[in-house]
């Protein structure tokens, strides 16, 4: 990513994906579920490092399909996504978002 590339537009693509158009001409695509799986907050990072617990009791909020309910800029450098289960502590920096891009170009490289 060019050091000064910034998002110029955000769009929903269907119900399950986010598109970000960048100032350097790149267009990023993300599945919302993949963004949640890559949440950079300290809690989620810790959870990902633990082995899965087959006996974990699900919370009621986890039984409903997970959806994003908000995405808002944080300063000039990140976005915060709020999810339908109330989770909202992850800050996705612009750099991180470019690394997570699922477009064909980024997948090949």
């Amino acid at each position, binding site marked *: 990513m060019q050091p000064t590339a*910034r*998002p*110029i537009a*955000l769009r*929903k693509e269907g119900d399950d994906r986010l598109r970000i158009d960048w100032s350097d001409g790149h267009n990023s695509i993300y599945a919302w579920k993949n963004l949640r799986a890559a949440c950079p907050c300290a809690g989620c990072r810790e959870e990902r490092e633990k082995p899965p617990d087959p006996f974990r009791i699900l919370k009621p909020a986890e039984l409903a399909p997970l959806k994003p*309910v908000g*995405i808002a800029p944080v*300063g*000039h*450098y990140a976005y915060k996504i709020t999810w339908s289960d109330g989770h909202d502590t992850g800050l996705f920096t612009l750099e991180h978002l470019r690394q997570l891009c699922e477009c064909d170009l980024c997948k090949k490289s």
Partner: protein
Amino acid sequence: MQPGASQKITLPGVKHVVAVASGKGGVGKSTVATNLALALHMLGRRVGLLDADIYGPSIPIMMGVHETFDPNTAQFPLDRYGIKLMSMGFIIKPEQAMIWRGPMVHKYLSAFLTQIPWGELDYLVIDLPPGTGDAQLTLTQTAPLSGAVIVTTPQDVSLIDARKGLEMFRQVNVPVLGIIENMSFFVATDGKRYEIFGNGGGKKLAQEAGVAFLGAIPIDPRVAECGDHGDPIVHKYPDCDIAKAYLNLATIVSAEIAKGGAPSELPGLQL
């Protein structure tokens, strides 16, 4: 005033928000922020000064505010020497230690930005505490910063931390307007110039970082005396060399802001 949850802050009446920062403590950020704010005012601008150092607020003593106020009834911001002011030091006693974790700092700083009626200002100068922690995060995440000036003294031990402060603003995409070298030199009564804390550090940092060197402020014992007595040197001795240095600095900072322009906001998306 009720500290509460943070929100994106727009400050619609404020044209430019300028942070005065340094990685290092003791380099003179509060002195620079106060005198820079007054110098901008002397240039005919409408100016506010926000003391973002929750743990060690300096603006009250520097601006001659000796009383504390009930935050539920007081009319903030205060006005001294034509500058609008807000500080934690206006609502706590000087001897009171603020033993707070980050979320409390965030709450109060956000309240100072969102609940104080700053009105129409050309510049809101924010005096940051040292370091790259909670106060800096709150401001860079919520306030519409036009840019930051980094204060350093000439010596390496200050430059090491000033670099960190500069790098922090880079990481959060806040423009660094430039470097100010404080306590740069002392001119004795014999007319000789003494570089007590070394030489050239500020310029060297500016060159390394590719930012403007905004100026050098000399050492003058009256700076500390004026700060302690609540009448900053730019106001008390407007014709002295230090005041002229600050007026020059204010002119350059204005020009740098005008040149760069504030970074545009990131686009949002309604879901």
